[in-house]
């Protein structure tokens, strides 16, 4: 059954996350500079002061001790404080996590809503004008750098045509209520979601098409057609259910990618989410915040993989959880 399987997988994820935590901790330490580098460059801050700060944050402890201290805090819910603001990391992250998760979720939903019908139509009309057009657009989408696409959207829709707001999540000049507030939020989200969803949509459409084409050539699809079932049932139910199995893997693996892609998107559109926080913290070498964000990303990867495996079993009866 699914329940015990999920529990078993969660337990298996513990050593995995443990390993990841060592790697990200060491990788961050290996990056040049440090949290105090900017202070060292300033004449106003004396070396004694720097030493005091170093001792205060435990940065002069040996690395294994630093790591164990951090890990101990991580599992007990004390993720440290930001070197920059002095706020607890967990608080900083939980303030911003919903924004980024919402952006990721919206982009994921948009990708699915566009890519699945487009991929199915392209596969059922292989070599048609629609197939060639969607294939061309997909490749263009995959090849487009998202920062460039974001800047182009900003340039056209905000600065040239003045149709959409260029930054933030809400209009800070006015307090919108009711429908106006929803509309305000929507107009702010259109461009960031479009930028974030672009590559995922293009990739996913290719996978859906390829997977459908493979399945449409199977004998059981011919059996369904040969039983006189309507084409709609044949495509959506008989072919679709089988074609969705490989697509689920790809789609679920895209979620962490989208989450990390939000870094760029949030920076372009000045959205106060995890991405902007990550960039800012990286510049300052704010280790506790950076580590916190990376841990959340790692957990997200583990969760989406697990979800993919569970959905697998629901779609393909040959997979058992025993």
């Amino acid at each position, binding site marked *: 059954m699914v329940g015990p399987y999920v529990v078993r997988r969660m337990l298996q994820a513990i050593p995995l996350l443990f390993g990841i935590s060592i790697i990200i901790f060491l990788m961050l330490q290996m990056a040049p500079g440090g949290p105090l580098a900017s202070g060292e460059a300033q004449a106003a801050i004396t070396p004694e002061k720097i030493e005091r700060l170093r001792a205060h944050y435990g940065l002069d402890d040996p690395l294994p001790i630093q790591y164990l201290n951090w890990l101990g805090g991580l599992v007990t819910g004390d993720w440290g404080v930001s070197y920059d603001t002095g706020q607890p990391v967990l608080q900083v992250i939980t303030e911003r996590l919903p924004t980024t998760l919402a952006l990721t979720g919206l982009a994921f939903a948009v990708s699915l809503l566009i890519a699945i019908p487009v991929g199915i139509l392209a596969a059922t009309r292989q070599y048609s004008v629609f197939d060639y057009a969607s294939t061309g657009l997909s490749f263009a989408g995959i090849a487009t750098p998202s920062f460039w696409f974001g800047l182009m959207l900003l340039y056209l829709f905000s600065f040239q045509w003045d149709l959409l707001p260029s930054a933030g999540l809400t209009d800070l000049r006015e307090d919108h209520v009711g429908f106006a507030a929803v509309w305000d939020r929507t107009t702010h989200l259109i461009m960031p979601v479009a930028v974030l969803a672009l590559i995922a949509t293009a990739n996913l459409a290719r996978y859906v098409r390829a997977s459908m084409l493979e399945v449409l050539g199977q004998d059981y699809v*011919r059996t369904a057609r040969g*039983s006189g*079932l309507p084409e709609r049932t044949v495509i959506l139910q008989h072919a679709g259910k089988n074609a969705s199995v490989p697509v689920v893997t790809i789609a679920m693996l895209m979620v962490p990618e989208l989450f990390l892609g939000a870094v760029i998107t949030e920076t372009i559109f000045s959205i106060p989410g995890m991405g902007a926080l990550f960039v800012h913290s990286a510049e300052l070498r704010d280790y506790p915040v950076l580590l916190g964000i990376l841990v959340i990303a790692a957990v997200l990867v583990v969760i989406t993989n697990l979800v993919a495996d569970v959905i697998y079993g629901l779609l393909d*009866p040959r997979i058992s959880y025993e």
Partner: protein
Amino acid sequence: MTALLEVRDLVVRFDTDDGTVHAVNGISYSLEKGESLAIVGESGSGKSVGALALMGLLPRPQARIEGGTIHFKGRNLLTQSGQEWQRTRGREIAMVYQDPMTSLNPALTVGQQLSQVIRHHLNVRKPASRERAADLLSLVGIPNPRGRLDDYPHQFSGGQRQRVLIALALSCDPALLIADEPTTALDVTIQAQMIELVKGLRKQLGMAVVWITHDLGVVAGLVDKVAVMYSGNMVEQAPVHDLYRQPAHPYTLGLLNSLPTLEHGTRRLTPIPGSPPDPLRPATACPFARRCAWVVDRCRESPPALIRVAPQHSAACYRSADVNRQPAVGAQQ
């Protein structure tokens, strides 16, 4: 009275990267209600393509029906719309496919696959369609039919899956059943079971059967008449016993001579030398001429037409009268 199925001069071509494949070159046959016909030929002879044409399942856009008509219950299937095909397929004409391991949907239960088709054609509710699905499984000899409705195809053995496919084909009492080599993927003991099953069901349900096979050995007790195909052409057609006793085409004779028989334990089987002609090139001669022991100059000049050699017996050979006098080895004594 019109025949149940009347195929006239059916021509099917395939467009491939290498050129046009002449898959079926003008075959004709007819079938009365409840009658059974075996179409025999080797791989690439066009027998399966001809069968898929009856179902409107030729792969598009590669396959083209260049000419001919297929009349079923008096109406021409080839001019049917997609909607009309959906009412014909599975309801009036149904097919049992070659490979039971791949012809059932792995993601749907057997009960879903059966009852879905029953609901679509017979316009019944879900409980009634499940009831009928269970009856069908029991008809084709699957033990504990009701309990197995919720099983997936991978939980059935190969032979059982072929039984399920037969049940699926029979689900709406078709007037015509096409069996496309339904035994090739199964081992020999199961093959015999399948043949007996279809034979019995045919008698019980009174449907017409087109049995497609490469094995002349299996059709003897199974069908009323046999059509032999070679390289996209129908080379001989006869009531089953006439064909075995008095084949009128060298290819049919060759097929019979390559069958093992119990009476002649020490006889060496006689293979047919050579291989069939390239289907990419249209035939300007008898397609069998290069492999034929009876060949004369005329065979290389123009392809012979299918002509009557005896009542209900026709062959496409200039020398059919000579061949006809030479009984097959297996039937010699």
